């Protein structure tokens, strides 16, 4: 598996055009039970800001449920974990782990996402494998990095993800 470090995997994905409703629902979910900031739902107010209109919260995910290719297929997260790490896509044998957790994230933000934007997620780079003992047993830590761009080619977000498997 270590020989695969530095390789890219997965496929380039393109979002459907972001809708105002997608942004509003995301903001409503994050800020529940309070109202989200007007910048995320009030077009009249948002037009008075330097953005000139509604923008999405920086952490917004435009790839939920559907992409331009069609509906997402659900991953399996327990028992034999399917599509959970980079190995299947890299064509190498994965670890014999049963559980998977989000170990952490680092998001670097660029251009704001707006209604009508089409976001492209590039290939994901396998940055690092490491192991450590935890109270849950020996844990495999996988670091990956993916960059999103918008239809103008501007960087929207680079996300470095830490995947824990045990």
């Amino acid at each position, binding site marked *: 598996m270590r020989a695969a470090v530095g390789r890219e995997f997965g496929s380039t994905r393109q979002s459907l055009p972001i809708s105002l409703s997608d942004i509003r629902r995301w903001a409503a979910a994050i800020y529940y039970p309070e109202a989200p900031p007007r910048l995320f739902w009030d077009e009249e107010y948002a037009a008075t800001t330097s953005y000139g209109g509604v923008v999405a919260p920086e952490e917004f995910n435009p790839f939920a449920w559907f992409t331009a290719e069609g509906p997402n297929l659900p991953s399996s997260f*327990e028992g034999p974990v399917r599509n959970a790490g980079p190995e299947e896509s890299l064509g190498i044998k994965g670890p014999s782990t049963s559980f998977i957790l989000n*170990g952490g994230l680092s998001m670097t*933000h660029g251009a704001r996402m707006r209604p009508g934007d089409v976001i492209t997620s590039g290939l994901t780079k396998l940055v690092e494998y490491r192991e450590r003992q935890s109270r849950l047993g020996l844990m495999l830590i996988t670091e990956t990095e993916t960059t999103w761009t918008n239809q103008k080619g501007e960087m929207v977000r680079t996300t470095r993800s830490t995947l824990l498997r045990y």
Partner: protein
Amino acid sequence: MEATIGQELPVFERMSGFHAWNRFAAVNEEFVPIHMDDEAGKRAGYPGAFGMGNLQVAYLHALLRQWIGDEGRIVNVSCQMRAPNLRGLRTTARGRVTAVRQEGADTLVDLEVWTETEEGTVLAPGTATVALPPG
């Protein structure tokens, strides 16, 4: 707007539970057994079901936005998921300024950020950088 080293941000607080997790699951398409079912949480080695790490990340963003306002800019947010946010706990996102620097026209502020329970257990410690609103 000014920032000084050591300054604490106004907190952002939310109750952890299915009412919040289900809403986030619906928008992020994140229907994972450990976030929906106590037995699945126990099988994974935890006391029960717990909230999504991505929701903790979102709360850290909300904390920063609440402080810098609409015209501020979040440059980077990083955090580790150290402990589960279990149902019924009040999750508080906090931040403290660690550096203030000028980069071109931007005033950048580095922060230590984290979420914690009301007992003070740190859930998701991390760092962030924001650009203060111009002017």
